């Protein structure tokens, strides 16, 4: 007797491929938000699977804070070249230069919050009616309430208390002109699932996810990469350390972890035994108990 049993990774993969195909079918210009981070890389990989042997039918959009890890940008460009993808870039620097947003100042200055304006402007400029993101419900408690097809009003706002019920695998992407959707194909994945899947499918990722020697400094118990984007306090002294990154965001708000893990197997073991969440290294979430909810309502990823 044949066993028709799927492993959890293969079941998640099937669900995500189905979602990506629904996005392609229901929208005119769906676009994949692509940061060069592992979640957006996995989304792209799933899209390749969903539409093989045809090309991925989505443009890629990178909301560029200008505070990038060089390695992530190199990886992004390599992937775009290899698969002949079409890359769109929305620049936070441009939003600052044109006066759409004002740069934060001080030691904790970050361009994270400014991204929302650049993102919404880019969606309008490129006429994107559905932005596909690598957000996962396990990342943060406001994200745990997010739909797979998530409606945004004409101001790009999310209304968490008035979301459309989402049943079975039927997704309602109907909208009025000027409104748009966010779609989250890997909603049901955890950080662990993503790593296991990267290992299972042998998916290339930027090398800063693996342990490497880097100049860092410590702030509020978190290690940050020393870069020209960071303003150090007098008592903060940079030093060399073997670190890796669990998430890749804006350099000014993404902390490193002290880690010797240099293979996927070692990373998985580390994730399994670690006692803090992935976003525990993100300064942007530490601002208040509802930091993520507030940013999401305004239109953040």
């Amino acid at each position, binding site marked *: 007797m044949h*066993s028709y049993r799927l*492993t959890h990774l293969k079941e998640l993969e099937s669900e995500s491929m189905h979602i990506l195909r629904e996005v392609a079918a229901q929208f005119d210009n769906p676009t994949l938000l692509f940061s060069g981070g592992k979640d957006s890389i996995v989304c792209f990989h799933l899209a390749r699977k969903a539409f093989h042997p045809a090309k991925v039918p989505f443009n890629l959009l990178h909301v560029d804070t200008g505070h990038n890890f060089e390695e992530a940008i190199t990886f992004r460009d390599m992937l775009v070249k290899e698969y002949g993808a079409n890359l769109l870039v929305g620049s936070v620097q441009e939003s600052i230069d044109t006066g759409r947003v004002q740069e934060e100042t001080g030691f904790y200055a970050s361009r994270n919050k400014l991204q929302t304006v650049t993102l919404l402007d880019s969606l309008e400029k490129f006429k994107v009616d559905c932005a596909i993101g690598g957000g996962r419900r396990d990342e943060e408690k406001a994200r745990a309430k997010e739909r797979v097809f998530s409606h945004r009003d004409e101001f790009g706002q999310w209304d968490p208390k008035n979301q459309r019920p989402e049943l079975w695998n039927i997704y309602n992407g109907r909208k009025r002109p000027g409104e748009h959707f966010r779609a989250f194909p890997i909603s049901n994945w955890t950080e662990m699932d993503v790593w296991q899947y990267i290992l299972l499918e042998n998916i290339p990722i930027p090398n800063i996810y693996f342990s490497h020697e880097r100049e860092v400094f410590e702030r509020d118990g978190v290690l940050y990469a020393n870069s020209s984007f960071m303003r150090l306090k007098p008592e903060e002294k940079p030093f060399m350390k073997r670190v890796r990154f669990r998430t890749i965001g804006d350099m000014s708000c993404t902390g490193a972890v002290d880690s010797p893990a240099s293979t996927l197997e070692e990373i998985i073991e580390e994730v399994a035994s670690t006692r803090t969440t992935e976003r525990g290294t993100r300064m942007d979430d530490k601002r208040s108990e509802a930091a993520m909810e507030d940013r999401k309502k305004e239109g953040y990823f």
Partner: protein
Amino acid sequence: MKEETSGYLDMDLLRFTTAGSVDDGKSTLIGRLLYDTKQIFEDQMEAVQQASAKRGNGEVDLSLLTDGLRAEREQGITIDVAYRYFATPRRKFIIADTPGHIQYTRNMVTGASTANLAIILVDARRGILEQTRRHSFIASLLGIPHVVFCINKMDLVDYDQATFERIKRELDDFSSRLEVHDIRFIPISALKGDNVVTRSKVMDWYQGPTLMYLLESIHIAGDHNHVDRRFPVQQVIRPMTTEYHDYRGFAGRVAGGVFRVGDKVHVLPSGFESTIKSINIGEHDVEECFAPQSASMTLTDEIDISRGDMIVGTNNLPETSQDVEVMLCWFNERPLQAGGKYAIKHNTRDARCMVKEVMYRMDISTLRKADGDPTLKMNDIGRVMLRTTVPLHFDKYQRNRYTGSLILIDEATNETVAAGMIV
């Protein structure tokens, strides 16, 4: 932790929903499951400790782990379906935590629609309430294969066996009218941890499994229909490159049965028959695909097939009709309009429909037809006859959750206003 890194190729996925009345301790139970399986991280725990202290709660309030929205934390209630994740070396779990308030029943229906299992909490001091009946009925209506009644707060009734047995008997009587074939009962205390992950030391009269053991071991591979072959087409894939010049693949997610290369298939609505030439999942050619896999298939004949069509087995066709009878859960503040027109989504097929007749409204507490006005208002459930603009190809919901389900959309607001289970 070693087995988690190597054993992941052998894990499967169980989706469950939790329901209970207000203050039945759902969030505490989920917090307990996450806490006792060490899924709660230090920074989450710190945040919850800080928040509990700020609210002046004596004990650490585990419900703060799941109540994610500001309004929920302020009011101490759960508003929306919250999805939570945890894993043991044997299984990955997805919890759809749904609120118990009567006005949010739509969230319970949403959470139940994809669940393999429902945990229904009953307060040992209060026994069966109207909400208990409502939740059990919804679990049955939504075709959840396994239902576990957790008689909670046993610590507040001195872990009394007679209380547990009495509630169990009442639930048994009531459940005999439901279409759930696997029903279990466990006495627990979510607050103290009895029989959740670890066996209760005080309730030695209970010999059954702990909740966690049940969740880890319950057989779920049979929850999908692997008999009736159903493949709703999502997309037609035409690469139009030199390498794949003639490739014309039909992409979809298998909604039922097993499809093999060489199988004769029937295409709806055209009625043409053909043979499966190839099946691929991504770059890999495979010999077969089965529910719930996403795959693409090519056929030996050039047949006109587009999104919304369905590829099925030749010997076993779904029903095809423009008259569709459904059990309808109504979600919207504006009641269902008899004679009203709505957009309808069934599988990958979009159509419009008219409400021909509301046959009756259910009285949830008696599980019988309600007398009088059959108008369906928010959170009502009733039997309704729809007439669709194009024929739908469907199975009865109790036979197949994917080909037997549909949603209605208000064409003016685009809101999802109802979920329908075809009867």
